[in-house]
């Protein structure tokens, strides 16, 4: 793997030479994220978000482990144990708010990371495996976040768990037994809370494992870049360290600035007030909504209101919601355009910025709103576009579009950009 001109690790003293012989861990790190990994020189700031997602995962794991030391996964005391953390544990409020808002930060950076991949065609060969592993991480994240939201055992925790596990109840014949089996009872209770806690603690480490595979798979072809043109010579690349470690430093600092602002000054801004009411199976909240990062998918779920022949609308909604994510696995074969980057694809770019992005924003807005007739109507149009965009429009664009001429190399693109940026000199 890697390019022939990659720097080679040279242990500098007796100890590192010894270590390199017995366990070449420093060499591994050097080749993975050090000076031994050549990276295209033209990456823009959108390429920071992979590293930021890793940082967010670390924040979640560290704060989560500390929370688990004080949390009690038992139906009658779970809510009180979270309040105990907020009031009596040293800096408990900080750890808990960090974990709560850290989840949102994780999803923000991962969504930007995914949209980067969508715009710049990072899912195209030779990086399909990187894309697929990334989607596996995304699915695991969603499962982890959902189960984590249940743990404080507030009203939204309880009813969220009930609604989401209820989705499995939509499966014909075996649905209800499956739902009961998943929950360990007929409704979310202690059994569900305990298994959710167990899995919520396990899955982040599974995510960590898949991230290792994600990066491993990435390092075989090397990183993509905004032009989508593959690396041709040494001139096109710079060593990851110090060039991109420095650039990622800027990204990490900006990430923590946003994170700190949210955590310290608006810690409950993204949450639902209902989750500060202890879970009560006898009282249904007026408006059951998931956390914001699930809103677009929740809108798709609710958009199906009419049965199709013998398929009930609810089952259609569940199928569509899962399909909305699973269809992303087929992207490498749906978008057959040989040009990767949206920069050189005039038609694709229009549909991306004026179709897909507004469509997702509208779906998100609808998913977070009370499902009135108007909201459902809007989400039906937006969801219709969502499926049409990926399954119909994207393959068609690839056929009819005439891409703009590509630069011959990354270096040529960089030089051309500098020439246009400094016309006065």
């Amino acid at each position, binding site marked *: 793997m890697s390019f022939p001109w990659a720097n080679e690790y040279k242990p500098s003293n007796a100890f590192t030479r010894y270590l390199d012989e017995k366990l070449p861990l420093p060499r591994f790190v050097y080749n993975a994220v050090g000076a031994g990994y050549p990276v295209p020189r033209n990456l823009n700031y959108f390429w920071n978000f992979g590293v930021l997602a890793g940082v967010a995962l670390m924040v979640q794991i560290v704060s989560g482990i500390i929370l688990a030391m004080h949390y009690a996964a038992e139906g009658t005391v779970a809510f009180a144990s979270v309040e105990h953390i907020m009031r009596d544990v040293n800096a408990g409020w900080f750890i808990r708010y960090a974990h709560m808002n850290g989840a949102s930060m994780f999803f923000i950076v991962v969504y930007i990371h995914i949209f980067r991949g969508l715009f710049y065609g990072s899912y195209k060969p030779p990086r399909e495996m990187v894309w697929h592993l990334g989607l596996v991480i995304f699915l695991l994240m969603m499962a982890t976040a959902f189960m984590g939201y249940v743990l404080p055992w507030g009203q939204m925790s309880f009813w969220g768990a009930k609604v989401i596990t209820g989705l499995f109840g939509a499966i014909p014949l075996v649905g209800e037994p499956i739902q009961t089996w998943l929950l360990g009872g007929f409704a979310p209770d202690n059994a569900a809370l305990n298994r959710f806690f167990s899995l919520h603690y396990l899955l982040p480490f599974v995510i960590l494992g898949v991230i290792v595979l994600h990066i491993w798979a990435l390092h075989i072809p090397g990183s993509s870049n905004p032009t989508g043109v593959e690396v041709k010579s040494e001139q096109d690349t710079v060593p990851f360290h110090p*060039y991109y470690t420095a650039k990622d430093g800027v990204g990490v600092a900006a990430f923590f600035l946003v994170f700190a602002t949210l955590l*310290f000054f608006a*810690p409950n801004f993204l949450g639902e007030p209902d989750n500060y*009411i202890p879970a009560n199976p006898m009282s249904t909240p007026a408006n059951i909504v998931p956390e914001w990062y699930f809103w677009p998918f929740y809108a798709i779920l609710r958009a199906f*209101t009419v049965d199709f022949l013998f398929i009930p609308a609810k089952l259609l909604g569940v199928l569509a919601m899962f399909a909305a994510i699973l269809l992303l696995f087929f992207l490498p074969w749906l978008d057959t355009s040989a040009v990767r980057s949206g920069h050189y694809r005039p038609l694709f770019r229009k549909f991306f910025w004026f179709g897909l992005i507004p469509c997702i924003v509208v779906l998100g807005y609808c998913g977070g709103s009370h499902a009135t007739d108007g909201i459902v109507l809007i989400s039906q149009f937006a*969801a*219709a576009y969502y*499926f049409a965009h990926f*399954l119909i429009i994207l393959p068609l664009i690839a056929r009819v579009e005439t891409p703009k001429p590509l630069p011959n190399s990354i270096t040529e693109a960089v030089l051309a950009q500098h020439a246009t940026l400094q016309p006065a000199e």
Partner: protein
Amino acid sequence: MIRIGAFLVGLFFSGWLLVSAAMGAFNFVKSPPAPTAEHEFHKKPKDVDFSFNGPLGTYDRAQLQRGLQVFREVCSACHSLHYVSFRDFAALGYNEAQIKTIAQEWPTEAPSINPETGEATTRKPIATDKIPAPYPNEVAARAANNNAAPPDLSLMTKARHGGANYVYSLLTGYQNPPAELKKKFPDSMPGKTTHYNPYFANLNLAMPRPLNTDGQVTYGEGAPKPTVDQMAKDVAAFLTWTAEPKLEQRKRAGTAAVIFLLVFFGLCVGAYKNIWADKKAHA
């Protein structure tokens, strides 16, 4: 093959969504949804200028103490404050002896057991006790209040949209139901055991107006006049403290963190420019 399959799946989902939308729109036009009383009469909470608003806001200790007084003399007859201990009142500016007195003089006793017989009994609260609840359990709370158990107030300002503004608006929002409500939505008129309040989600709540007259609570020397408005503000501030006792530490730590991170961000930008200088220059 994949693209044909995808096309058909896409056609099915998108097509059926458009069909559903058309049917929904048709139904909407044919039988528009009836307007609801909540939609027309519910009001958004009023904006109050609390001392703890804004990124640097802090609690007004004197106000929190007055709020505690209102809570003790009015709210605590029915509402519990489950997550707060007497010792926590140190944050309101009370010393140990004062907290001991507050606990001793609390209107409700703390549950206990007789050390000799093991029978359930009650005793005077001490500083480390949680605030004793007015009812021994939820059944008792329901039985005493027309089947509507008064909720715990510890987290109330975080458990409602609008927070302290909501609590203030609700306490000062009791009024006679508008004549229009009676005309348009006779079913939404308050019943025998409910009371009209446009700030409450479904307009009628079981709790009768708790703050009735100016001077219902007697404030100490130098305090503002205990009008209904003032008492509502004070108790809303107090309940914000019970819900978020670490608010001041949080904002202080936040200010330090943001200043630190701004400097850190500047250093990172400097390091980045320095390291990339050669690449940018000859490019």
